């Protein structure tokens, strides 16, 4: 029986690997997701068959699955695509909290997990794994709650820098290590062990909050990804305790995934992970320096834009965060269709960190039914701007800033950008001449071949559509 169960958990782990492997292309992704569901079903059924649940227990499980499942399904159907960052953060907090309770259960009743010694005490090894699991789980929970609040606007995105925060954090870590030490000394027995456990949880919760509040709201995507990684490591730690292959494999997969996505984001922004985690970004960002020279901006109206694009041979659309905010993707798709009817070639260029989470633009364009073979990554399209008549930048800013290439003093210097300025005409749709996420001015606004279309992205595109 146990052998069969162990085998089935392995199968479930392999199915999870296949789920992620499917994501290598949109064609295979749906099948991949089904593999993932199958893996989860196998893991759950194996456990149920194995857990010797009483009738009452079975009822409880069904109730829990029903409540949780309904809530999850409703959220999944209702959520707006633009709210994905918050949603992911919220979900992470649940995984973290769930891990805390599972760790608590393992400590309170090691015998049901089959991990107790003959005298009912716990191995040092199990206690350490369990402590790691609960610590990371609790940090994931409280950290994700803060990230959610910042992303959802329930809390100001401004970094909150407490005095001596690094010392406080170190002290908390030291305290946690000390608690684990005593916990190991108790062999996990008696109410003293339970108290220590909850103390450890408390320390971790506080640590999680302190870890995230100094980080600016705009850096939250990196944080969310980092917390994703943490939730994976928490699962892996409990996989060691519970001796469960599915948990071990999944933990490692999720842990790697979050870490790699954080890395990709940091590289796309040309910032170091450490500087993100240390926080404070967004506060010190200097206002665009005023060099005293009066510069002129060429403003345009929807009709001008429509006229130019109608007569263009090739238009490349560059969407950014502003498109997401304005929910302009559907209008944009309509504009592309109108242009295609006029015989214009239309492509979309996506910067790796356009928007506020990895793949953000892709999912919004997909929502508006833009076929994904019209959508190109930076490396694949950057050489094409030279042959485009119009670069149509909608709600994007930093990802087109030439300062990243030619101004070594710029905070984004070295970050790869979309070379929209090589197109015949560059159009910017945004509401003002203000800066984007990085808080720096975009010199393109003042170039001769630039036309600024100042308005809300959705309204402006709708006007263009009328003019077309």
């Amino acid at each position, binding site marked *: 029986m146990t052998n069969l169960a162990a085998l089935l958990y392995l199968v479930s782990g392999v199915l999870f690997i296949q789920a992620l492997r499917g994501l290598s292309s949109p064609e295979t992704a749906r099948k991949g997701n089904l593999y993932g569901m199958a893996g989860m079903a196998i893991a759950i059924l194996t456990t149920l068959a194995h857990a010797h649940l009483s009738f009452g227990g079975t009822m409880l499980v069904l109730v829990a699955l029903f409540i949780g499942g309904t809530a999850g399904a409703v959220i999944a159907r209702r959520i707006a695509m633009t709210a994905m960052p918050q949603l992911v953060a919220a979900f992470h907090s649940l995984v973290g909290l769930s891990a805390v*309770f599972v760790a608590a259960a393992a400590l309170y009743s090691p015998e049901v997990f089959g991990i107790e010694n003959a005298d009912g005490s716990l191995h040092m090894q199990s206690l350490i794994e369990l402590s790691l699991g609960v610590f990371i789980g609790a940090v994931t929970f409280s950290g994700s709650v803060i990230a959610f609040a910042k992303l959802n606007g329930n809390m100001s995105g401004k970094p909150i820098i407490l005095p001596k925060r690094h010392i406080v954090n170190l002290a908390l870590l030291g305290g946690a290590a000390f608690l684990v030490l005593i916990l190991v000394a108790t062999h996990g027995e008696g109410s003293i062990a339970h108290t220590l456990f909850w103390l450890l949880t408390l320390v971790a919760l506080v640590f999680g909050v302190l870890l995230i509040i100094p980080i600016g709201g705009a850096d939250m995507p990196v944080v969310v990804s980092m917390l994703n990684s943490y939730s994976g490591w928490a699962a892996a730690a409990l996989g060691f305790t519970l001796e469960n292959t599915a948990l071990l494999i999944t933990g490692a997969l999720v842990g790697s995934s979050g870490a790699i996505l954080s890395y*990709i984001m940091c590289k796309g922004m040309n910032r170091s992970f450490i500087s993100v985690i240390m926080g404070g970004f967004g506060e010190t960002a200097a206002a665009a320096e005023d060099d005293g020279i009066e510069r002129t901006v060429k403003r345009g109206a929807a009709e001008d834009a429509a006229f130019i694009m109608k007569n263009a041979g090739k238009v490349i659309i560059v969407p950014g965060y502003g498109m997401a905010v304005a929910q302009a993707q559907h209008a944009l798709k309509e504009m592309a269709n109108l242009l295609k009817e006029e015989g214009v070639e239309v492509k979309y260029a996506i910067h790796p960190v356009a928007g506020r989470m990895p793949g953000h633009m*892709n999912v919004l364009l997909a929502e508006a039914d833009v076929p994904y*073979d019209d959508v190109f990554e930076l490396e694949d399209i950057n050489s094409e701007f030279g042959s485009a008549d119009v670069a149509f930048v909608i709600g994007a800013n930093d990802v087109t800033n030439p300062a990243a290439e030619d101004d070594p003093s710029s905070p984004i210097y070295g970050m790869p950008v979309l070379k929209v300025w090589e197109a015949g005409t560059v159009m910017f749709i945004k509401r003002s001449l203000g800066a984007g996420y990085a808080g720096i001015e975009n010199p393109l606004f003042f170039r001769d071949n630039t036309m600024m279309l100042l308005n809300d992205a959705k309204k402006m595109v709708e006007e263009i559509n009328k003019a077309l």
Partner: protein
Amino acid sequence: MLAIAATLIVDPFVFRLAIFTLACFVGYFVVWSVTPALHTPLMAVTNAISSVIIVGALIAVSAHGVTREFGFIATTLAAVNIFGGFLVTQRMLAMYKKKG
């Protein structure tokens, strides 16, 4: 004989460590092979699968007293994630369409 065999038995922890290490390699490679256009669904689906922690929660329900309550809460939380995560991924993936 039995004594010799006993000294030769490897602590299962080492096996688990091997499984974990290899799974980290697999994770590294598999995530790098994900196309950037699907990074948002990737976040959602990793969310869903990390809720496989539910296996611990279900076992806890089979215990008594407060452990069972812990198990109940953990199962509910994980279930939100499992259903929410897979379904929202499915919803997103259904939107990705080829031309024509």
